[in-house]
């Protein structure tokens, strides 16, 4: 077990969460229910390998390649598979197109559903009551919390992830990026812009 020793009393009335999790892991390993090395691989996967840079690549390609963009809105699963993105919590994907008229925002009011293969694990705020409560009734208020103001005539469509469908927002390509290649564009694509709580960076907000 890759655990350091603990100095808590056994059976303490209010064991802290750190100790309780460690204790449960020992039990499940002892019982043979879990392979501790599998736990390490699970953690590494989402700490190091899967995250919003995946989604950014998809968005950047959608910005430069009209055929890819069309496929993405027609059959997101197939479009993501071209990058090898799919699987757990992204089995059934749909891409949502932001336009000057419509801004999309994704939430899971009932739990924490989130498109893991393209965005990684959700940030704390996404899973917390303030966002889950507010997004469906006051998305402009949510955007304000993120320091974002949209034009008044832009409508906001909110997507509540109540099924196993998962959603990826495709933000609008920033002005002043004509001729940029995919890698350069991808650097503008923030995680929040793919949830709908933010916008992509502007060219002057990244180092050249």
């Amino acid at each position, binding site marked *: 077990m890759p655990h350091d020793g603990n100095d808590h009393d056994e059976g303490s009335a209010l064991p802290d969460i750190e100790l309780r999790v460690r204790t449960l892991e020992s039990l499940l390993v002892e019982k043979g229910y879990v392979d501790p090395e599998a736990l390490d691989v699970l953690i590494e996967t989402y700490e190091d390998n899967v*995250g919003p840079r995946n989604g950014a690549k998809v968005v950047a390609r959608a910005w430069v390649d009209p055929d890819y963009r069309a496929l993405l809105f027609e059959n997101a699963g197939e479009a993501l598979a071209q990058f090898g993105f799919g*699987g757990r919590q992204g*089995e059934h994907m749909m891409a949502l197109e932001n336009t000057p008229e419509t801004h999309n925002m994704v939430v899971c*009011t*009932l739990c924490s559903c989130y498109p893991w293969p393209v965005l990684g694990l959700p940030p*704390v705020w996404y899973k917390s009551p303030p966002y889950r409560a507010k997004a469906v009734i006051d998305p402009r208020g949510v955007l304000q919390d993120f320091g974002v103001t949209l034009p008044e005539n832009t409508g906001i469509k909110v997507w509540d992830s109540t*099924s196993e469908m998962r959603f990826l927002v495709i933000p609008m390509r920033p002005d002043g990026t004509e001729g940029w290649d995919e890698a350069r564009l991808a650097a503008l694509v923030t995680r929040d812009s793919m949830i709908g709580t933010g916008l992509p960076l502007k060219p002057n907000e990244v180092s050249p």
Partner: protein
Amino acid sequence: MNGPHDLGGAQGFGSVIPEENEPVFHAEWEKRAFALTLAMGATGTWNLDQSRQARESLAPAQYLASSYYEIWFQALANMLRQHGLANDTEIETGKSSGHGKSLNRILHSDEVVAALGRGGPVVRPQTKPARFAAGERVVAKRINPTGHTRLPRYARGRVGTIARVHGVHVFADAHAAGKGEDPQWLYSVAFEAKELWGPDTTASSIHVDLWEPYLEPAKV
């Protein structure tokens, strides 16, 4: 169930607080709680809908006072008890008082990447035609099931429009209740924000994925 998890439209929780350069995990125990939950899920002892049910079944005060990985951890411990995989003393001490139960499968480290890549698709064959088509007006049933449901309270009794027919998906309510997959047509239903909230909203529409058993044709 009308539990603490059904948060859409609730007020008084304050602002959303984004964290600059947020790490994937905030503590070692979060990593382990996350991985334990996935690894136990992979044993096939319970399904994802049952995991969600276990989380939303925590006492409301506890649910709202817990961080999300604390909720996962509590729910995991409860499922281990419910399925007879561990008892209270074992969970408290970390010492096994007997042999483990034999499980359907154990997730080994060399299988993790492939297992995550496969995921758990929930689309099933279409054995009957869809009751509704895109553009049709529907009303979400006014129901208050005590078990797991994915029909949020804010949509119940409200009229919306079928925006997209997603296909036939495993029905979460039945799946969580241990009644098998009971696949049903799933729809993206668009609700005008004012239909849900009256004038007190800044949204234009809310799209909710709803299974056919939640829906009825809207009276014209």
